[in-house]
C-alpha cells in the first residue's frame, strides 16, 4: 500500500511538471513577450528591449522554464519584482517564497492575490452544480437502466441526449430569454455583488442551471450503462425470482454495484466544473476562475496561465487519485486482492 501511494504521488508530480512545461512551451514560444506585456502597448521598443535584457527573456526555453520553477519553489526571487526593472511590481509576501506564482501582467497584481478568490467563487458555482448533478444523474441513470429498451429507458435517454447536446452558451441564451426577458424572475448577470438589487442566491440560479443542463445527461448515460450491466447479472435474477420487490432489488442489490464504475465519472465532473465553466462565467459575467484563465490566455499573461493550469492539473490528478482509492473502497474484490 505504501509503495502504491508513493508511486501514485510520484506519477502525479511528473504529470504536473510535464503539463506546466507544455503550457510554458506553447505560451513562451515567442521570447520577449513578457517585457512587452509588462510595459503595455505604449512603451517604446527600446524600453521593451532593455527589460527583455534585464529579465534575460532571450534565454533558451528550458532555462526560462527552470527560472519559473525556481521562483515557484522559492529558490530564486521573482525577476519581475526586482526594483531595477522600474516596474514597481511588489508582492507583500516578498519576492522569494514557496508557492510564488509570480506577477500577473494582466491584473498588475501578484497572481496569488487574484487567483484564490476567483477559485473560491468558481468552487461555489461548481459545488452547487455538482450537488444537483449527482442526484439527478443517478435518478435518470438508474431508472433508465432498470429495463433496457423499455419505454421509460427510451424517453429518459432521449431527454439526457437532448440536454447534453445543448452547449452552455445556447442554454444561457434560452434561459436568459425565458427567465430574464420574457418573465423577469432572475438577474441576467451574476457579478456576485448586491449592487444590482438582486440577492447573491438569485444570481447563482441561472449559472448553476446552465452547468447542470449540460453535464447531468452525460453522467446519467454512464450510470445507465453500468446499471444495465448489473441488471443482467445472475444475482439480480435470483433476487427477482425469490420474489423480492423491484424496490428491494434495486436498493438492496443493484444500486451499490451499479455505482462502482460511474463513481470515477462523477469525480471527473469536478475537473470539468472547475475549468469548463469558462463559458458560463462569460455569459453571466461571473467573477470566476475560468474567466480569469480566458482573460489571461487572450492577454498572454503567462504567470496567471501557468498558475491556473497548475491548479487545474493538480485538481485533475488529485480527483483521479481519489477515484482510484474510492474504487478500492467500494469494490471489495479490488481491496482484498
Amino acid at each position: 500500500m505504501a509503495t502504491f501511494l508513493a508511486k501514485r504521488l510520484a506519477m502525479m508530480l511528473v504529470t504536473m511538471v510535464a503539463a506546466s512545461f507544455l503550457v510554458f512551451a506553447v505560451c513562451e514560444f515567442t521570447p520577449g513577450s513578457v517585457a512587452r506585456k509588462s510595459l503595455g502597448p505604449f512603451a517604446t521598443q527600446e524600453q521593451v528591449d532593455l527589460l527583455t535584457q534585464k529579465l534575460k527573456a532571450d534565454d533558451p526555453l528550458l532555462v526560462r522554464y527552470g527560472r519559473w520553477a525556481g521562483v515557484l519553489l522559492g529558490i530564486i526571487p521573482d525577476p519581475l519584482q526586482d526594483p531595477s526593472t522600474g516596474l514597481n511590481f511588489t508582492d507583500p509576501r516578498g519576492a522569494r517564497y514557496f508557492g510564488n506564482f509570480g506577477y500577473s501582467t494582466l491584473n498588475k497584481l501578484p497572481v496569488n492575490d487574484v487567483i484564490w478568490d476567483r477559485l473560491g467563487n468558481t468552487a461555489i458555482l461548481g459545488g452547487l452544480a455538482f450537488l444537483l448533478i449527482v442526484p439527478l444523474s443517478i435518478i435518470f441513470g438508474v431508472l433508465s437502466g432498470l429495463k433496457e429498451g423499455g419505454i421509460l429507458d427510451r424517453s429518459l435517454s432521449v431527454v439526457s441526449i437532448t440536454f447534453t447536446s445543448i452547449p452552455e452558451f445556447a442554454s444561457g441564451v434560452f434561459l436568459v430569454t425565458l427567465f430574464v426577458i420574457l418573465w423577469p424572475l432572475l438577474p441576467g448577470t451574476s457579478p456576485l455583488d448586491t449592487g444590482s438589487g438582486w440577492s447573491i442566491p438569485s444570481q447563482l440560479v441561472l449559472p448553476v442551471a446552465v452547468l447542470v443542463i449540460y453535464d447531468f445527461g452525460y453522467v446519467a448515460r454512464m450510470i445507465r450503462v453500468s446499471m444495465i450491466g448489473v441488471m443482467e447479472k445472475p444475482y439480480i435474477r435470483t433476487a427477482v425470482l425469490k420474489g423480492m420487490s423491484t424496490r428491494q432489488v434495486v436498493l438492496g442489490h443493484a444500486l451499490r454495484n451499479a455505482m462502482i464504475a460511474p463513481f470515477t465519472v462523477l469525480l471527473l465532473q469536478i475537473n470539468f466544473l472547475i475549468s469548463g465553466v469558462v463559458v458560463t462565467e462569460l455569459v453571466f459575467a461571473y467573477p470566476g476562475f475560468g474567466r480569469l484563465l480566458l482573460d489571461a490566455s487572450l492577454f498572454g499573461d503567462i504567470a496567471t496561465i501557468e498558475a491556473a493550469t497548475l491548479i487545474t492539473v493538480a485538481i485533475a490528478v488529485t480527483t483521479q487519485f481519489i477515484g482510484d482509492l474510492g474504487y478500492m473502497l467500494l469494490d471489495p474484490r479490488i481491496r482484498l486482492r
Partner: protein
Amino acid sequence: MSVLTEQSGTEARAASAKIIKRRQWTRILRSRTAMIGLFIVTFWVLAALLAPILPLYSPTEQDVMAMADPTPSATHWLGTDILGRDQLSRLIFGARTVLMVAPLSVAVAMIVGITMGMLAGYYGGWIDAVISRFSDVILAFPVLVLYVILIANIGPSIINIVIATTIASAPGIGRITRGLVLGLKHQEYIAAARLRGESTLFIMLVELLPNCRSMLIVDACLRIGYTIITIGILGFLGLGLPPPNPDWGGMVKESTTVLNVWPLMSLVPSFAIVSLVLGFNLLADGLREAWKP
C-alpha cells in the same frame, strides 16, 4: 473432397457474414433515434452543400434598411443580424464551415489516435508506456483550457482548430483503440495471420482495424458532436474563425449584446447548433444500440 468442404465452408461463412451485416443495417434502419439523427444531419449537410445554388442573400452583404428592424420579414425570413446581414443565409453558410471543420478535425484526430492506440496496444512494452504516459498528461488537462491556450497562442484558423482538436482528442481515441486491440490481439485469427507471415501493418489494418470499427464509428459520431460544440464555444469566446466568415458561435456572441431587444437573433443560431449536435448524438446512440453484440 476436402477442397469441396473447404469451399462450401468459406461460402457458408461468407453468407452468414452477409446475413449478419444485413441484420445490422436493418437494425439501424429500424432504430428510430438513429433515423431521426440521420435525418437532422442530412438536412444540414444538404443545406450546406446546396448553399451556393439556393436563392439566398450573400452572408456578408449588409442590408442597411433592415438594420432598423432586424426582426423576420418577407425579405429576411429569419431576420438579420445587428449589421443587417441575412440570418438565414449566415446560418446556412455557417453550416458549411462547421460541417467542414468538425468532421475534418475528427478525421485527423481519429487517424492520429488510432495509430497511437494500435502501436501501444499491439506492441506493448516501452512503446505502450511512452504513449500511455504522454496521453495521461494531455488527458489531465481540462479540455477547454487546452483549446483556449492553444488557439489564443497559435491564432484561430481552420488548420489550427484541426491541430487543437487532434491534440485534445487523439489521446482519448488512442486509449479506446488500445483497449480494443488488447482484447483482440490474442485471438486465433491474429496468431494465424502472424503464422502466415503477414506484415504487422497488414495485421493492424486488415485484421484488427475492421474489428474495432463499430466502436470507433460511434465514438467518431459523438466526437463530431463535441467538436461542433467546441467550435461554437471558440466562436462564442471570440476565438472563432476570423470575420466575416459566418460562424454559429460567433453569431450568438455578436447578438447577445442586444438579447433583451431582439432575442431571436441569438436564439436562431443557438437552435441551429443544438439541432446539429443532437443529430450526431442521436445517430451515435442509434448506431451503438444497433451494433450491440
